[in-house]
C-alpha cells in the first residue's frame, strides 16, 4: 500500500508483523495524522508492508486500526529526503498464535476494556461442546465438533472445522455452572472458533465468549463495519460493486452473499440487488437470510401494491420457517419487518402476530454485539434443560416446518 502526499519528499515505511502469515490477508486500516492530529490520509491494506510518501519534515502519527477495534499508534519523526520506519508488532495481541485472527477480527469491546481495566485472572471453565444441524425441520447431531468436559483456561481454546453445505448448523456450549449458548455456523465454510472465558464482570456477561469466523476476511470485515455503523469505512474497503460480486458468487458462498446483501441494503443501493436477492432466497431454501434480504428489498422499494405486501409477508414468514438467520442483522431485520407488517395489517393478521410473538422470544436471547447470530440464555431456569427450548427456537414445531415447506415449494415454483 502506498499513500502519496505531494507536499514533501520524506517518507515512512511501515511493517506489520503477525505470527500467522495468513493473517496478513485480514484487512487493516492505516491512518496518517499530523502533529495536531489532523487526518492526512487513510486507507485499508492487506499484506505486511506499507509506505507513506511525499511527507514534509516533522512529527507524524501512524495509526493502525484492526477490525476488532484494537488501535495501535506510533509517533514518528520524518526528515526531508529520509525514510522513517514504524513497526507494528501484533504478535502479542493474542495469548496463542492460533487465536491471532480472533483478536484482529472480533468486535469485542470487553477485550478492549480488559486491556485497560482488568488484571488477568486465571479462569477455568469446564464445558461441553456439541454441534448440530437443522435438516427438514429437525435438529440432528453432527460430528463437526464434540467435546465433553473440555477444560477452557484463561487463554481459551481454538478449533477449526468445515461446515456442511445445504443446511443450518449450530454450535452448542453447555456447562454445569452457566446457561447454554448457541452460535450459528455459516454453512459450507472453513470455520475458525475460539472459546474462552469472558472478560466482563461475572453475572453480567455470559461467562463464555465464543468467536466464530469464516476465512472470507473481506466479508467478515464488512460485517463488523456494519455492526459499528462505519459504513463510510466499509465503502472504502469494498465498493458497492464489490458487494454485488459477493452476491454474484452466491452459488459458491451463500453466507458471504448474504453479508453482501445486508451491506447493499444498508448502503441503500437497492438497484444493485437486481433480482439476486430473490434468487438467493429461492436457490437456498435452507438460508433464512436470503428471504429476509429479499423482503427488505421489497420493503425499501417505494409504491407498494397489496401484492408487494403479501410477498413481503410471504418472505418473512418463510424466513422464520427456515430457522434462525445466520447473521444478527438478519434477526433484526426479520423483527423490524414483522413489526412493520403487524402495524400495516392493524395487528389483525394472525400469522404475522403469531410469528412476531415467536420472534420476540428469539430476540430476547440474541447477543446483539455479535455479527454471527449468537443466542445466550440469561435465565438460570434453562440450565440443565436446554434442548427442548433450543429445538423450538432453531427449528420450530411441526407446524413451522410444514409452513416452511409450503412456502419453499411456492418460492421454488
Amino acid at each position, binding site marked *: 500500500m502506498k499513500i502519496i502526499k505531494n507536499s514533501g519528499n520524506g517518507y515512512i515505511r511501515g511493517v506489520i508483523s503477525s505470527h500467522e502469515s495468513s493473517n496478513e490477508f485480514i484487512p487493516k486500516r492505516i491512518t496518517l495524522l499530523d*502533529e495536531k492530529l489532523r487526518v492526512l490520509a487513510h486507507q485499508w491494506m492487506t499484506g505486511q508492508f506499507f509506505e507513506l510518501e511525499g511527507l514534509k519534515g516533522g512529527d507524524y502519527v501512524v495509526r493502525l486500526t484492526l477490525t476488532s477495534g484494537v488501535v495501535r499508534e506510533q509517533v514518528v519523526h520524518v526528515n526531508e529526503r529520509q525514510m522513517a520506519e514504524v513497526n507494528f508488532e501484533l504478535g502479542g495481541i493474542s495469548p496463542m498464535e492460533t487465536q491471532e485472527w480472533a483478536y484482529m477480527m472480533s468486535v469485542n469491546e470487553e477485550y478492549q476494556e480488559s486491556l485497560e481495566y482488568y488484571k488477568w485472572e486465571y479462569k477455568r471453565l469446564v464445558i461441553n461442546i456439541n454441534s448440530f444441524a437443522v435438516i427438514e425441520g429437525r435438529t440432528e447431531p453432527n460430528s463437526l465438533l464434540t467435546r465433553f468436559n473440555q477444560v477452557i483456561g484463561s487463554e481459551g481454546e481454538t478449533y477449526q472445522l468445515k461446515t456442511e453445505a445445504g443446511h443450518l448448523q449450530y454450535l452448542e456450549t453447555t456447562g454445569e455452572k452457566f446457561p447454554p449458548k448457541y452460535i450459528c455456523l455459516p454453512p459450507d465454510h472453513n470455520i475458525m472458533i475460539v472459546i474462552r472465558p469472558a472478560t466482563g464482570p461475572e453475572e453480567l456477561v455470559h461467562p463464555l465468549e465464543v468467536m466464530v469466523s469464516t476465512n472470507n476476511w473481506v466479508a467478515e470485515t464488512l460485517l463488523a463495519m456494519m455492526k459499528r455503523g462505519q459504513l463510510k469505512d466499509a465503502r472504502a474497503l469494498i465498493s458497492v460493486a464489490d458487494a454485488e460480486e459477493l452476491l454474484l458468487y452466491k452459488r459458491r458462498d451463500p453466507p458471504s452473499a448474504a453479508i453482501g446483501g445486508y451491506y447493499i441494503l444498508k448502503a441503500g443501493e437497492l438497484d444493485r440487488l437486481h433480482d439476486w436477492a430473490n434468487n438467493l432466497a429461492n436457490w437456498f431454501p435452507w438460508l433464512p437470510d436470503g428471504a429476509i434480504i429479499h423482503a427488505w428489498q421489497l420493503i425499501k422499494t417505494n409504491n407498494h401494491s397489496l401484492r408487494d405486501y403479501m410477498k413481503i409477508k410471504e418472505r418473512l414468514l418463510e424466513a422464520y420457517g427456515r430457522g434462525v438467520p445466520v447473521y444478527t442483522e438478519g434477526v433484526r431485520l426479520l423483527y423490524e419487518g414483522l413489526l412493520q407488517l403487524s402495524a400495516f395489517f392493524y395487528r389483525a393478521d394472525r400469522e404475522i402476530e403469531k410469528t412476531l410473538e415467536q420472534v420476540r422470544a428469539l430476540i430476547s436471547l440474541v447477543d446483539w454485539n455479535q455479527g454471527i447470530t449468537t443466542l445466550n440464555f440469561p435465565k438460570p431456569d434453562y440450565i440443565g434443560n436446554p434442548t427442548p427450548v433450543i429445538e423450538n427456537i432453531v427449528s420450530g414445531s411441526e407446524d413451522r416446518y410444514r409452513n416452511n415447506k409450503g412456502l419453499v415449494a411456492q418460492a421454488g415454483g
Partner: protein
Amino acid sequence: MKEESYIELAFDQVSDRPQTHVLIIGVGNYPYLKGGSQEEAQTVIGLQQLEQLTSPPESALALFRTFTEFEKQGILINPLGSIDVLISAAPGANIPDDLNYRAATIRNVELAFDAWWKRCDRNKDNTAIFFFCGHGLEKGDQYLLTEDFGENPRNPWRGAFAFDTTRSAFHGCAAQTQLFFIDACRQVTGGMLEANLSGIPGLATGSYIGTESIYNLTIKAAAQNRNAYGQEGSASYFTSALIRGLSGHASTSNEDDEWIVETGRLALLMTQLIKLENESQGFPQRCPYVMGESKAIIRLKEVPEVILQVNCNPDAALEHAALSCIEPVSRERRQREPAGSPWEIPLKAGVYELQASFAGRQYTDSRKMTTVIPPFKKERIKCQ
C-alpha cells in the same frame, strides 16, 4: 407546571431549516407506586418493589442544560430548533422556575411525542433526539413507565408504553437522523412472565411499510434483564456519560481539522464513558446499541481536553521518577516530582513527549512520544 393539553416548549426556535429537535422525559415521581403520594397496593407480582426515583428529573435537567449550552456555543451541526421537557419529580424537587415543562403522564407523553414527530418531520435533514429516564421493564418489548403507572392496580400498564414498537414506528418520520437514548432498567418481573403484554401500545404504531432512517441510533442504559444505575439526587451514570461523550469525550479529529462527535463513536464508547463516571462502581452497566450509519452531530469549537495518566514500567520506578510532559511545537513543559501514584494530567488532545528521569542508576532515563486522544489515555514509560 402547565396544563396537560397545553404545549409550551422549553426551547422554541422551530423553523423549516435543518434543526435539532429534542424530547426529554424524566420520571422520578410515581404517585401510585411504593412511597408515592397516592400509593396503591400493586397486585402484579414484582411491581410492589418499584419505588420513587430522584435521579431521572436531575438527568432530564442536566441534558436540557447541555443542549441549551451547546446551542449557545454553536457546536450543534444542526442548530437547536426545540426542546420539549416532561418531568415528574417529587414535591420540593429543585426544578428551575423559568423552565417550561409538563408532568410526564402518559397523556402528556403521547401528546409531546406526536408534536415532536411533527417538528422533526419538517425537514429530512433534521436531527431527532429522544431521551427517557425513569422506570423500565422488559418482556419482548421494553416498557417505559410514566407518572401514572399503577393507578389502576388491575391494569397498571395503562401508564406504560412499548418503547421498541415506538422506536420502530418512528422510522416513518422524515428526519433521517434519529437518536434514542433510553436510561431505564430492562428487568422482567414474575408477574410479567405470566402476563401477555403484547397489547401495551407504543406511542405510535406506524401503519406504514417503509425504509429505516439512515442515521439511526438507539442506545439503552442497561443490557437485557439488567438495571441502569444512578446516585440519588444526581444525574444517572448513563446520562452523565452521554453528556460527557457529547461534550467531547467521544470526539475524533477528521481531515478538515475539526473535532467532531459522531453517533457511531458515541455508541461504541458509552460503556467506557460510564466507567469514567464512576470507576469504583465495578462498572456493572453495559449499554447495548443498534445503529444505522454513523453521523456527525457536533462540531467542537476547541480541541477537546483529555486526561493523560502516566505510569512507569516497572511500576516500582514511579516513585523515583521525575516526570515531564512536553508539547513538541511550543515546547511547553509540565513536570512532576517523584511520587507514588500515577500522574494524571488534563491536556488538549494532541501529540506529546513524555520523559522520566532518575537521580540514581537503578532505572534508566527514558523518553517517549505519545498521542493523547479522547476519551482518555494511559501511558507507561519503559524505564529499565
